[in-house]
């Protein structure tokens, strides 16, 4: 299988038109093996690009106001490696939630596995997805 690679996209010295493919003023070279991560700025291959990474922001509610949030953050980072960022969010009457940003992969079946993994951690009452965006 041929995959096109763009050696230096900002050089733009020549232009190759491929049927069904499109690239603005960028030289393309056929390569034999896919390089991972395949990173092709500006190249559009209809149908060949997958959904891409999705970032979910979840609200993690502790079981009680007495749960140590620092410990909980540590536990979340250890148990759920896809977690990228954690912030505290004040809710009410001294109760704080944790806002957690995590990446959901293509074939993980949505946010449910992530919600379940977070909810299974000691000290967590519930985990709910509150925002969902594809990465650009």
């Amino acid at each position, binding site marked *: 299988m041929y995959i096109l690679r763009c050696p230096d996209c900002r050089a733009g010295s020549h232009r190759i038109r491929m049927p069904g493919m499109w690239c*603005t003023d960028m030289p393309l070279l056929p390569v034999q093996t896919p390089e991972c991560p395949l990173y092709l*700025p500006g190249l559009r291959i209809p149908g060949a*690009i997958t959904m891409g990474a999705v970032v979910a922001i979840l609200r993690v509610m502790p079981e009680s106001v007495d749960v140590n949030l620092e410990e909980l953050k540590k536990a979340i980072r250890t148990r759920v490696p896809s977690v990228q*960022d954690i912030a505290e969010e004040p809710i009410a*009457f001294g109760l704080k939630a944790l806002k957690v940003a995590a990446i959901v992969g293509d074939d993980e079946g949505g946010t449910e596995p992530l919600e379940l993994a977070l909810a299974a951690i000691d000290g967590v009452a519930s985990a709910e997805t509150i925002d969902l965006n594809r990465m650009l």
Partner: protein
Amino acid sequence: MATAKPHMNLAIIGHIDHGKSTLVGRLLFETGFVPKHVIEGYKKEAEAKGKGSFEFAWVMDNLKEERERGITIDIAHKRFDTAKFYFTIVDCPGHRDFVKNMITGASQADAAVLVVSAAEGVQEQTKEHVFLARTLGINQLIISVNKMDMVKYDQKRYEETKKNVSELLKMVAYKPEGMLFIPTSAFMGDNIKDKSPNTPWYNGPTILEALDTLKEPEKPTTLPLRLPIQDVYTISGIGTVPVGRVETGVMKKGMNVSFMPANKFGEIKSIEMHHEEIPEAVPGDNVGFNVRGIAKNDLRRGDVTGPADKPPSVADEFTAQIVILQHPSAITVGYTPVFHCHTAQVACTFTELKRKLDPRTGQVKEENPTFLKTGDAAIVVIKPSRPLVIERVKEIPQLGRFAIRDMGSTIAAGMCIDLVQKQLR
């Protein structure tokens, strides 16, 4: 950044690779909401190489590299301002597995931009997303006929795409006559912010102008209060504190409330949001409230708070219109998957398949079908295995929608059109 502008959730929908990401990037870029350090990085490189103006392609590449550097909550939350509104982008993944999030709240949108490539026209996901947008109650739609650069800004291709999309929209009872169709190239920047010289035959608004023609979503404050409970706490010195988001109506201090299906009643002593006491909470507010006369164990996640005199409806059974998104075989009477409705998750049984509908026209295709499969739309009767609060979508749409999940994937989406009230003692 605080702003007094009204807020809108804007969904970007359409077939994979028709330019959704590029459009999002372009909107952020043209409105100056690309993260600062990306712009800083560009400036440094531009100075070093002696380049002039910003290049969109460079910015897109660097936004992509964010992924490798790690994502923060701020970056994940994509927002921009137009003259009139403050938009948060709901960049829905096309994948069916995320339909649940679109229904249960995370990705609810007030308006949508449907992106259709002029080069490829209407595709499978274009249809699916239009249908879903309709099911989810998104009534304001702007159509970006994208990738015009790939068809050499050909007016014929634009008109053809517009015609095909219009037909699709009519099938699900949208009125395309009143909608804006904009020939764009998100990648090249045509008709996004400024009118493009490449489309002299087009006299309509650009995408950003079109966004300002949207109507501000009315907060459903006139409906009865509905607040689905996320969790319940006992806080020392305070008492019982349920936590959740107001979906409809207004919650006021001193109000007498009911909790269903728990069938409990109490009085609101105080309401807090972000640790600050507020006299009332309106739709969209995430609050904790202290309630007199209720113990923590009286309530659980999935219960819904309402006024004492207009308690939430508890369904003994309900009639629903559903669309099957993906099911490996066939759905028959007796099938019992899990229904996700507001914060509740309840196993429910299909007790009757009343009618199969043509998903495109809504016309009855078959009375009393024996089974339903992927792609079918139908009117069915559902019996919850335990008491469930659900409302008729015509009365309180926010609590009338649900997703059906089984074995880790979303198999159907639907809405409650009628219900039989459960008698509570």
